């Protein structure tokens, strides 16, 4: 094949065509930024004063978190779990909707850091740190809900594998206990992954530190990292192993969350499509949250050369793809409910979509459908993927849509269970709303603190993706020149190497 191509090229040599046409990879970092520039730009965020906008987001978020989560939960614990809108038939209500919502958000972080690492998608390096931070904070927010939803939070230790006062052990056959193991493992492994990834960058900050406190704090966190290859080789192996461990882990977490529903005998929940459907939805919602956070951050801290339009374009494509997967899952579960001829299953879906005269939650279903299935379709068009307002708008809609997805699954089902006497319309209480809004504040406040104190871009890995970091780069360029190669960009434009 190759020799054949060469012969054709030689035959046409007199037509002044280059001997070899090379399609160059797109640059991940723009404007030929140097190693020092990258260190300076990212560490500079931690070293300089925060812009006004940072304070304008941090202070209200922190107050909302304190009042919502702190106040709301204090009131809940001192009064009783009845202050939430949950009741006998709707025993899960908002708390579990919020739990599944937040845990799903986290999945994009692990996808970016682990799955895209294993598939050698180098563009992940600019966004993986912030996405992993997002994972950690989202799981923190998620953990609050089931812990307090157990009713008496001081008894939450019953979930741990230790016998209770009557020497009774947990039921290991229950998906709820699997969930305890899955979520706590997920949190721990994500934290380890995040921290190991950060050690070399913390060392960068340590080596630039001017004052004693900063030197001590970052010095302690960096563990004395020196960047010797005898350290890097173990570090890289550790990173690879953690990526390989996190990949099945992240898929297992939302699979097990979906088991909470799928293993029950409840119409609308008892379906085998739930695990893949939940995982696709989680990645979909998580990427929307990454975009929601990263688009303002790159603008605020001048990171446009590191998080380029190419990165945003790629994320938008993933949203479009997973959005289609989610849309397929919605339609397929609907089709199977009808095709399966299970009276109760179809009844649950008919009530969900408004095909039954008693379908009080059809509005939520169509809200979900519009946000999750219709809005990502904009990303088929390049213009929409390149326009930050459109990207941000769609990401916001997806965030809302993914919350509604969980609301539709939990509330519409439980409000119309087996006994018609139990049927009711669910209203969240003020404490429900306070706690949920509080977790949004907590999430944003934690993310702001992350931006303030930790390197928000993976400096070492971004440097690694530069062309000059490939030790064979010069040889490769030389060989191309020898062969009389002409390089082209993806769009078909010729690259003039001499002037570059």
């Amino acid at each position, binding site marked *: 094949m190759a020799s054949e191509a060469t012969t054709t090229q030689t035959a046409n040599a007199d037509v002044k065509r280059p001997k070899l046409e090379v399609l160059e990879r797109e640059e991940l970092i723009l404007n030929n930024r140097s190693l020092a520039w990258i260190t300076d730009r990212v560490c500079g965020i931690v070293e300089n004063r925060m812009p006004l906008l940072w304070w304008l987001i941090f202070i209200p978020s922190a107050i909302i978190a304190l009042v919502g989560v702190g106040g709301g939960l204090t009131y809940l614990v001192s009064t009783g779990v009845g202050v939430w809108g949950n009741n006998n038939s709707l025993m899960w209500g908002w708390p579990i909707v919020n739990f599944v919502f937040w845990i799903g958000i986290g999945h994009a972080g692990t996808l970016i850091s682990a799955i895209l690492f294993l598939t050698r998608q180098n563009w992940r390096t600019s966004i993986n740190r912030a996405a992993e931070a997002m994972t950690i904070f989202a799981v923190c927010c998620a953990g609050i809900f089931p812990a307090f939803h157990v009713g008496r939070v001081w008894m939450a230790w019953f979930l741990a594998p230790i016998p209770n006062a009557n020497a009774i052990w947990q039921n*290991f056959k229950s998906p709820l206990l*699997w969930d305890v193991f899955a979520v706590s*493992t997920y949190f721990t492994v994500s934290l380890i992954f995040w921290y190991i990834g950060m050690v070399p960058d913390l060392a960068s900050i340590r080596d630039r530190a001017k004052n004693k406190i900063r030197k001590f704090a970052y010095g302690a966190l960096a563990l004395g990292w020196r960047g010797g290859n005898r350290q890097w080789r173990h570090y890289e*192996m550790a990173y690879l192993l953690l990526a390989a461990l996190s990949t099945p882990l992240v898929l297992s977490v939302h699979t097990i969350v979906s088991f909470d529903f799928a293993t029950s005998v409840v119409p609308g929940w008892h379906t085998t499509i739930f695990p893949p459907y939940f995982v696709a939805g989680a990645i979909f919602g998580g990427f929307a949250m990454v975009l929601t956070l990263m688009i303002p951050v790159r603008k605020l801290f001048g990171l446009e050369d590191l998080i380029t339009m190419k990165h945003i374009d790629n994320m938008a494509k993933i949203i479009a793809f997973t959005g289609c997967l989610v849309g397929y899952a919605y339609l397929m579960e609907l089709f199977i409910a009808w095709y399966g001829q299970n009276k109760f299953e179809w009844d649950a879906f008919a009530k969900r979509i408004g095909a039954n005269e008693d379908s009080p939650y059809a509005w939520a279903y169509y809200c979900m459908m519009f946000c999750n299935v219709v809005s990502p379709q904009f990303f088929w068009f390049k213009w929409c993927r390149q326009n930050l307002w459109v990207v941000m708008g769609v990401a916001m809609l997806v965030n809302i849509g993914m919350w509604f997805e969980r609301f539709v699954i939990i509330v519409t089902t439980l409000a119309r269970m087996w006994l018609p006497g139990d049927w009711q319309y669910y209203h969240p209480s003020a404490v429900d709303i306070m706690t949920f809004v509080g977790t949004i504040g907590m999430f944003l406040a934690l993310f702001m603190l992350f931006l303030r104190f930790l390197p928000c871009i993976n400096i070492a890995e971004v440097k690694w993706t530069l062309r000059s970091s490939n030790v064979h780069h010069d040889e490769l360029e030389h060989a191309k020149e020898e062969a009389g190669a002409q390089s082209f960009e993806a769009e078909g434009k010729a690259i003039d190497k001499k002037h570059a």
Partner: protein
Amino acid sequence: MNTGIKKVYGYLARFETATALYKAAGKVRDKGFKKWDSYSSFPIHGMDDAMGLGRSRLPFFVFFGGATGLFTAIALQFGTQVYLYPTVVQAKPVNLFTIPAYFPVMFELTVLLSAFTTLFGMLALSQLPRFNHPLFESKQFARATDDGFFIAIEARDPRFNREQTKEFLEEIGGTDIELVEEQL
């Protein structure tokens, strides 16, 4: 405590680019040095071969970490559900045939203990945490985590020689060659 006594750690030489460091590392390896390292702010691909280092032994330890997790989960679940306190819920059997229900926790604990072994194994193999190191005495070494590329040859290497090693580092393209001394 500063005794005023200094001990030579070794020579530190700086290189301009990753490629220069890579080529120089190959030459240091061929010269037969053993106690030395190359420093960069990012992992350089191919450097393990250039330095004559093999594959990291970390996966070996992680395997045993993961196996410990798996056996812990098996012992925990069968021990409690079949022997210690069989709880009959939803008419599910209380014997070995219940095993599919135990897969999720087996998987999670395998991953959890593997991850811990990875973390602590990596730290142990790269001899971290170690907050003080003679190389930190060098001013220019701060650039190792920024844009500097360094090779340090330690004095405890049997081939180390105060004059010849310096000349050798100059020969292979090192600049800003510095004798690093640690305060005792």
